């Protein structure tokens, strides 16, 4: 059995229900102090990295100037932010990249269904498809920057296939660039989808499928009516997690593939925050953008928790 047949860490996210009944697993009769001692280091780490940062980033968003010489400006940063075409464009690019979510989900689910049988080499195929997911986006972004550049490898391939009409300067054209970045994201995220969905499909009991087959259901009907509904919960989790990734962890692709360019056409919110905070030194604007990003992210997080809670209730 290969690793690919096992549950993945991401799978852990989907599979386990929160058993939230309080105190049922404690053998200690009385409340004691030692659990607080054990939780203290984690509380310190979270308090420092998350707690402190949340408070400070909100505070900075109302100030202008550099650290040490901050002046209170009220909501001016937010007004400036939404008047700045670069920011709205960056935000819009994040939303455009959300289009990768249905593509990754659909394509990896389709492949997982197709290889949901035992045949020669299936493990190796799964291992190959998963590999991109663990490789550093920095290094692979470098490779893709040569593959996708104008007159690069992809254009050469298209020419040799007599599909010259598809040739583009994939990273140099303002209207194409964000889709090219999306393509690289799909390339990297595809494997985790295949592995998660394959593991989920393996856990579907075989009898239902057998019964349907005996009743003469076609392959397609079995997939659509039996298998997909059985793993619906996992598909939902996957979609939300992918959306969160596209919103909050695509900086590396943008930085390495285009540096946000041409001009700012491929900038995303993360890149905008990086550029304003660390290249232009306007930490007030960058912090305001970070607060907006946090606000958007919390909508997704709330949605994620809602799906989790609902799934737990259904399981109970």
């Amino acid at each position, binding site marked *: 059995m290969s690793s690919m047949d096992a549950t993945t860490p991401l799978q852990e996210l989907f599979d386990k229900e929160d058993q939230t009944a309080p105190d049922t697993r404690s053998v200690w009769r009385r409340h*004691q102090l030692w659990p607080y001692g054990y939780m203290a280091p984690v509380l310190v780490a979270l308090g*420092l990295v998350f707690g402190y940062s949340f408070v400070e980033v909100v505070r900075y968003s109302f100030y202008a100037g550099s650290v040490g010489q901050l002046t209170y400006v009220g909501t001016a940063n937010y007004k400036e932010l939404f008047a700045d075409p670069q920011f709205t464009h960056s935000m819009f690019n994040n939303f455009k990249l959300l289009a990768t979510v249905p593509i990754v989900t659909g394509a990896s689910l389709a492949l997982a269904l197709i290889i949901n049988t035992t045949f020669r080499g299936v493990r190796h195929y799964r291992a190959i498809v998963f590999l991109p997911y663990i490789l*550093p986006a920095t290094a692979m972004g*470098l490779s893709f920057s040569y593959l996708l550049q104008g007159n690069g490898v992809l254009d050469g391939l298209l020419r040799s296939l007599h599909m010259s009409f598809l040739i583009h300067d994939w990273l140099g054209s303002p209207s194409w660039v964000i889709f090219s970045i999306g393509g690289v994201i799909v390339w990297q995220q595809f494997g985790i989808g295949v592995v998660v969905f394959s593991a989920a499909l393996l856990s579907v009991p075989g009898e239902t499928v057998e019964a349907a087959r005996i009743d003469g259901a076609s392959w397609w009907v079995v997939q659509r009516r039996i298998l997909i509904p059985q793993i619906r919960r996992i598909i939902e989790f996957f979609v939300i997690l992918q959306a969160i990734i596209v919103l909050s962890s695509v900086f590396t692709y943008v930085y390495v593939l285009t540096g946000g360019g041409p001009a700012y056409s491929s900038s995303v919110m*993360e890149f905008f925050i990086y550029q304003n905070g660390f290249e232009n030194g306007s930490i007030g604007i960058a912090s305001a953008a970070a607060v907006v990003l946090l606000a958007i992210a919390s909508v997704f*997080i709330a949605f994620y928790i809602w799906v989790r809670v609902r799934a737990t209730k259904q399981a109970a």
Partner: protein
Amino acid sequence: MQHFRNVMRQLLLVVISIVSLYPVWFMLSTALKSTKYYTLDPTGFPYHVTFSNFSAVFHNWPILVWMRNSLIVTIVAVGVSTVISIMAAFAIVFGKGRGRESLFRSNIALMAIPPVALLIPMYTLMVTLGLINQLPSVMIFYTGLLVPFSVFFFVNFFREIPLELVEAAYMDGAPHRRILRKIIVPLSGASTITLVIVNAIFVWNELLVALVFLQSNTSRTLMAGLALYQGRYVTNEPLLMAAAYFSILPLVVLYIFGQRFFVRGLTAGIGK
């Protein structure tokens, strides 16, 4: 018909595998070409193999220093976050007292926070502490970022451990320290390895934080160094690809030889 379907499936899988592997192959084949040869034939098979790019990266770049930095940062951040997360998860699952469930739930929410939103306050904090261009700056940040998923992971795993094991030890008068060390930790070996691998991959691959916190040539991690030298050597494709190849090599090796640990760790939560 069945046969036709199988052929089509194999064909599809071969095409998908080529697409998955081609960027890696392109990286390796380019790194093995001389600049002149690459310019003439960027995609062709590297018939005239040269290792000069690899040796140039070693001699002209501080790549060994970067690799060492990445390794130290990964070991410390993953080590510390794993240990403190095990302790917290033990208290959450087996302890008594208020606040345990709230801590667990906040970890679920924090897992999805964009790191970039924390970057500016953390940067100013590191400036105050004088830690910019020092490895501890990123170690602290990464440790914090790894905690939410690690706590979540261990809590879910500990909840599957049969309570009788803990009860028996408790009846024998073992204190909580002993129960954690002698019962819980040995049972979690395989899961811990899995989590360590997952977290180590995150730290090794991280770019944004390293780029901002580590700006001196000798303090950079491998990814930050690679991203910086991209600008400097962008027209020397074989050289950059050789450096990039060094950065993915440890992961590919880990992936090939570490599969056994993946299996053991990931199935431990379900079976037995």
